[in-house]
């Protein structure tokens, strides 16, 4: 626990982070920017897991283990997304969302 910090303040920070990510996800027009927004959203959820584990169930580890799994899935997702972006750039020379019309080449 952080001395002098309640769970409400931590959860407020993560909520703001989550909605900043959602805002970026909707307004951005570029695949890489959307990937960045998704990372923000995932990080907000990971902090939530960790904080609730620490503040409400300090003798358990479920939150920590789940956040490790979330981080692993996020890494896999980023690697795949980056490779898809490369392939797409090779096909149509652009990574803007509006230029992408085909799912299969």
């Amino acid at each position, binding site marked *: 626990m952080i001395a002098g910090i309640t769970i409400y303040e931590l959860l407020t920070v993560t909520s703001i982070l989550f909605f*900043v990510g959602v805002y970026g996800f909707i*307004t951005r027009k*570029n695949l890489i920017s959307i990937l960045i927004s998704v990372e923000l959203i995932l990080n907000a959820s990971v902090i939530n897991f960790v904080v609730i584990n620490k503040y409400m169930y300090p003798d358990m580890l479920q939150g920590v283990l789940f956040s490790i799994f979330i981080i692993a899935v996020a890494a896999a997702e980023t*690697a795949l997304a980056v490779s898809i972006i*490369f*392939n797409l750039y090779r096909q149509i020379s652009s990574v803007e969302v509006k230029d992408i019309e085909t799912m299969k080449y």
Partner: protein
Amino acid sequence: MERIIFYILAGIIIAFAIASVSSRKMLRSVIYLLFVLCSIAGVYFLIDYNFLAAIQLTIYAGGIIVLIIFSVLLVHHIEMRLEIAKPSKQIVTGLICLLGLGVFLFTLYSHDFQVIENTATTKVADIGTKLLSYEEGGFILPFEVISVLLLAAMIGAIVIAKGNKLSENNKTA
């Protein structure tokens, strides 16, 4: 003291997250994301999960950021300014997000969390034992599944990023 550090970290997280989704230069937005991730690692250090902070620094700040920077450098001209959504759309989205945030915060502050005061620290050995235990409450199955998932993602990333070349080789072989 910890209070002040937490407020500084929270300020950095929020300010750089907003900068990251609103900057018009691609590379800068990635670097702002790096600051956000490092501050989140700082929060993990503050709540005494050192192992998680180390994971955050190595995988996110070390691996994912480098991947994204690579993709930015290979795909974009660095000086190119990003296309941005119409101001009306930005305002509408911002209002919707503020509304959602209001709902979240209202729910949070009206819920009474059963907080247990504690100063327990988690040892890395405990995490490892829990992760590999196959008794009740053990996490051996998700651990194995996640390793298969990582392998699949690795192979998939190679196949997709190689694209045409690989399939041409297959045809000639």
